């Protein structure tokens, strides 16, 4: 086959996919505002997406904070290290690593689970059945998941921030033998509210990306078990890439001087 024709087809398919995703996202947004609302489902999804992600997110943040402290100490200046380590751990975790690591971990867990669940519902016609029972699938399935992710991701990242800084603190005081009081004081002095809120804003956006990608790929899966498997993989891959890309964009917007 002609090389140009292949490129052309890939470009067209990609554009078509972006168009479909945009329509899906727009439809979801319009359904968030209009009643009926499914409050019970929202709580249920907040438990599944938020609460049950706590252990992975907490462990990830804790070890990342610890490793970060070591790296800064080894690779950076041993000079004035008590100040440098504390401040860079605090800023690095709250601004970048907390939201990105939590986002990626939850993407792996939740995008996959959503895509698998909705994908199975699609191929077994359960989503069609909702329509015939006078229930809008966007309102019943998509909106609760998207809202739950947007609400719980910032909460998860807030906890990740605390544990990440704590990881750095424990490594610094135990293995680098820094003074605990000085470390805490340096952290407080350096950290501003903006650092934390910027991370939480990122987290809300990541939550949206995670749930939308899971729902979109689940909704559009076709062709039985294999199709559901493909949807699950695609959901995780696209959610992760989008998280990293939007993180870059948001960092350049939020911290532009």
């Amino acid at each position: 086959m002609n090389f140009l024709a292949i490129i052309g087809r890939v470009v067209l398919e990609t554009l078509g996919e972006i168009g479909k995703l945009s329509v899906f996202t727009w439809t979801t947004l319009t359904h968030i505002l209009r009643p009926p609302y499914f409050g019970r489902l929202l709580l249920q999804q907040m438990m599944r997406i938020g609460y049950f992600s706590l252990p992975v997110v907490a462990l990830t943040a804790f070890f990342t904070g610890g490793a970060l402290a070591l790296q800064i100490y080894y690779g950076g200046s041993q000079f004035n290290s008590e100040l440098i380590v504390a401040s860079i751990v605090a800023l690095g975790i709250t601004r970048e690593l907390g939201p990105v690591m939590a986002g990626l971990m939850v993407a792996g867990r939740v995008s996959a689970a959503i895509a698998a669940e909705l994908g199975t519902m699609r191929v077994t016609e359960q989503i069609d059945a909702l329509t015939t029972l006078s229930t809008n699938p966007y309102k019943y399935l998509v909106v609760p998941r998207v809202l739950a992710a947007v609400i719980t991701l910032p909460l998860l990242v807030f906890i990740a921030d605390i544990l990440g800084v704590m990881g750095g603190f424990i490594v610094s005081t135990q293995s680098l033998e820094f003074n605990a009081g000085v470390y805490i004081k340096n952290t407080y002095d350096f950290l501003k509210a903006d650092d934390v809120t910027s991370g939480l804003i990122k987290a809300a956006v990541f939550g949206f990306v995670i749930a939308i990608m899971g729902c979109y790929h689940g909704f559009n899966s076709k062709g039985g078990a294999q199709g559901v498997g493909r949807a699950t993989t695609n959901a995780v891959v696209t959610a992760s890439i989008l998280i990293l890309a939007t993180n870059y964009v948001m960092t350049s917007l939020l911290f532009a001087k």
Partner: protein
Amino acid sequence: MSDVKIELRNVHKRFGSKVVLDGINLTVDKGSSLVVIGGSGTGKSVMIKCVLGIIRPDSGEILVDGENVLKMDSGAREEVLRKFGMLFQGAALFDSLPVWENVAFGLIQGRKMKRAKARDIAYDKLAKVGLGAEVGPLYPAELSGGMQKRVGLARAIAADPEIIFFDEPTTGLDPIMSDVINELIVDSVKELGATTLSITHDMASARKIADKIAMIYKGKIIWSGTRAEVDASGNDYVDQFIHGRAEGPIQMELLKP
């Protein structure tokens, strides 16, 4: 009896370059039972999904009680959809909900009925399809295929619909269970006085539940008549199909290059 309940006029649908419906014309009289027969993959499911608004046809008109549903806004369309009940090919039960909630789903979510009242109706409908109260709290995965079909039937008739669609109600069941399902369909339809459209490739089932029979082939209705006329249709395609012969004008797709 000659009031027309549902009418399809020149309905076309293609997926990509694959033409599935190529100008379907079909009428279902009020209170009657029409069975559409045809081979696998001939677009039977796509046809009823077009009427239910799950798939949007490319062109043509679909009239329910004389109104073109394709020209309606989503609110009016949801109103029309309340007249329908649907039994899906694979039953399409919600596997996250117990049996009774599956049956009550359209009442609770779609019609905002109180749970206690919907629950009573659900158990009543389960009894109508020969399932005792002990089945109510079970989950769909715990049921046999025949029981799942019965629950699907109970769900389809739960809201006392004016129109019921059956997508291959007997496919995958043993001959005795098939006959049980056929009897249940005939009984429940008679009791509700509903208009029904069924699709099947099971001739025993078609003979049992049909007033009229139509045959779909290559996206068109190629023959229609009463149940009695089907044996003397004078149509080679129909003859080949009802006698299940490999030889005839219908060549299986897989024999072609």
